């Protein structure tokens, strides 16, 4: 039996009496392993039914449970409390907060409306001009390899929440949406010409990225959005100077 304290940032903006953020401590006993998500369920079941958080797959593939745990962006379901800084201490404490710099819905749930609006805005789908062949669109393994990194994005929002350019400017598209744009522009099957380009090739798009690299640091999937964004900047230049993106 092990014991651990969860220090959870609670806030219910709807609550007229207490709309402010405050921290609350909960003691959790467990055996073997404990992920932060399991800890939150424990609190929800044993102590406080009002605790709100997102969850779904509990296997780090859906991107629901992104939070700010012990001062870092993490997926709650992927974070074993044994791996946190406080692990060795006799009276371990884990702090759990919502992702900072995003509007709050309740407790650990952030408002992702803008995040997905920007995702949609970037036209995240394959654009084809020529008619489809009868069978598959051929793609060499080499071209396919270029997609390996960007297609692993689970749209968790960590990068978006961590980017200082987003904090300063609500209309900046942000790393996740730009990574999506990259994912399609770099795809050998994509035939978008100016369609998508006009959406990211501007000062609310790629040029707002100052290569701050917080996004890379924050991504729980270890992706590198900056790599994609920088590729897009070069692609824009290639297009203007040589008339082609890829």
């Amino acid at each position, binding site marked *: 039996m092990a014991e651990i304290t969860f220090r959870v940032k609670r806030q*219910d903006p*709807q*609550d007229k009496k207490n709309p402010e953020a405050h921290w609350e401590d909960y003691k959790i006993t467990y055996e*073997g*392993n404990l992920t932060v998500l399991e800890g939150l369920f424990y609190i*929800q*079941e044993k102590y*406080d*039914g*009002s*605790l*709100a*958080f*997102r*969850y*779904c*797959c*509990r*296997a*780090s*593939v*859906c*991107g*629901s449970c992104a939070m700010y745990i012990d001062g870092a962006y993490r997926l709650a379901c*992927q974070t*074993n409390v044994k791996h946190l800084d406080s692990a060795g201490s006799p009276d371990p404490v884990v702090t759990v907060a919502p992702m900072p710099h995003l509007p709050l*819905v*309740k*407790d650990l*749930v952030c*408002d*992702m409306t803008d995040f*997905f609006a920007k*995702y*949609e805005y970037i*036209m*995240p*789908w*394959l654009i*084809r001009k020529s008619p*489809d062949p*009868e*069978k*598959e*669109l*051929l*793609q*060499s*393994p080499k071209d*396919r390899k270029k*997609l*390996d990194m960007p*297609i*692993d994005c*689970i*749209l968790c929002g960590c990068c978006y929440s961590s980017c200082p350019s987003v904090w300063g400017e609500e209309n900046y598209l942000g790393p996740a949406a730009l990574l999506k744009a990259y994912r*399609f522009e770099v*795809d050998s*099957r*994509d035939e978008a010409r100016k369609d998508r380009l006009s959406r990211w090739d501007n000062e609310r798009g790629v040029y707002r990225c100052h290569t701050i690299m917080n996004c890379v640091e924050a991504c729980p999937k270890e992706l590198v959005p900056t790599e994609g964004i920088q590729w897009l900047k070069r692609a824009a230049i290639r297009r203007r100077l040589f008339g082609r993106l890829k």
Partner: protein
Amino acid sequence: MIHHDVIVVGGGLAGLRAAIEAKRAGLDVAVLSQVHPGRSHSGAAQGGINAALGNHPEGRDDSWEKHAFDTTKGGDFLGDQDAIVQMTKDAIEVIYEMDHWGCPFSRYEDGRITQRPFGGAGFPRCCYGADKTGHYLLHTLVEQAYKHQVKLYVEQYVCKLIVHEGICQGVVAYDMIRGGFEAFSGGAVIIATGGAGRIYANSTNALINTGGGMAMAYHAGVPLKDMEFIQFHPTGLYSTNILMTEAARGEGGYLVNGLGERYMEKYAPKFMELAPRDIVARAGQTEINEGRGINGQPYVYLDLRHLGAEKILERLPGIRDLAIHFEGVDPIEEPIPVVPSQHYTMGGIDTNVDGATIMPGLYAAGECACVSVHGANRLGGNSLLETIVFGRRAGADVFRYLESRPDKRPPNARAAFAAVQAMEDKVEALARAEATENAYALRTEMALVTKEHFGVFRDEAGMKAGLDKLLSIKERSAKVGLRYTGNVFNLDLIRTLDLEGMIDVALCMAMGALNRTESRGAHYRTDYTKRDDANWLKHTLAYYRPGEAGPRLDYKPVTLGYFEPEERKY
């Protein structure tokens, strides 16, 4: 009240595919989902999706007929063969379609889609994108949904169907972000809420797979079919039941017991680790039960080390990450401890080949439905296929249904209002209830009962005892209440509302299993170890009986016509 032509409940592969098809037919479509569609459970699927493309060098002679036969045999001949033929024929087309929409399948040197061997299949026909096929497919469909401007209502927990004069006219949903119940009316409703894995304690499924959609249809009077057939996957991680895909064995992984033997030699000498799941799961469970687990512990090893770092990193990177994060072992260096875990509900809402149920206006597709292509046991790679093929068919049929409907009156507003009122009253009552039972404790208890009594091996005495426990849990569940009554993101409310449906679905499963005195596919009874085609080549139907504890059971024949039932040997 919000109105759309078609209301799709669930944003997984099945729901999205149906929505896109209906939208392309010109209908105004809305998708309601408890989580953002991109977060649906389909994204967790790893291994791949079957289609007889014949791209694999050893698969040149593959054809949809062979795919259909493998599927039928894998399902122990309980599948409806017309549906199976339909699915395997459509398979090739839908894979190419997904590719044209941008799905990043892995590729051969010549640029074609790669395929790998999968359990129970005579040819390597499982198309894949690394070991994240579900994720890639799901995101491709999410992207297409945005492209086609399907209206997405995200974080809407659907809890009730609106039925007026026997016709389904919409749903009631709890808006998790803004709070409160809202009626969504539509000419037709497509349920695509996925499986009910969470009625088991040892499930590989997502935490939201509680069978809500099945329960809604069931409570509205539509029967659930073949619920006793629950698939156990041979390789869930020991401590968390997170899935280690079948592709790990498809790529050549071994299953090893405590004595260091590849024990599948004893159970399926020809197919070895790639026998169908029910057989491999039973083999693993037998090894564990007979004390041949690793160091006597209740698990066996999935050993990938001989594949080498390069192959693991290229073909199974996701598996490796999961094993590292959740079990603390790196498959490149150590074998992975695994146990058989609940994985898939073969049964579900009874539908025809077009996804239509017996209730006009109500459709179902995906894991929550049972067209019956999987029969008594699903083959790996067939369920992603099912979601897309039958999602598409349901979407198309909804269009035909709406066109041909003689009664063009708009949905009845009073019925919608009454349904919302009913939900509000129910919550009111829950909030005021003097709760003497804890909903969470009951849920845990139920999941442990199903795990213990309706697992890989079943028998009369065990199941009777289990059923009794379930019935008592059902009774006690009437005494739960709400601890939190806030409006916004009230998980207490959602999880309490889930409970009733979960118990009812579990009861359908339990009674169906108890009644079926044979062993077929995933339903294996130690007291009736043989398949009994004379008496049991038929589907179980479970009907809701308001006010009674369990369902009324009925049976209907299996559609044959292509393959004669034969003994199933691997």
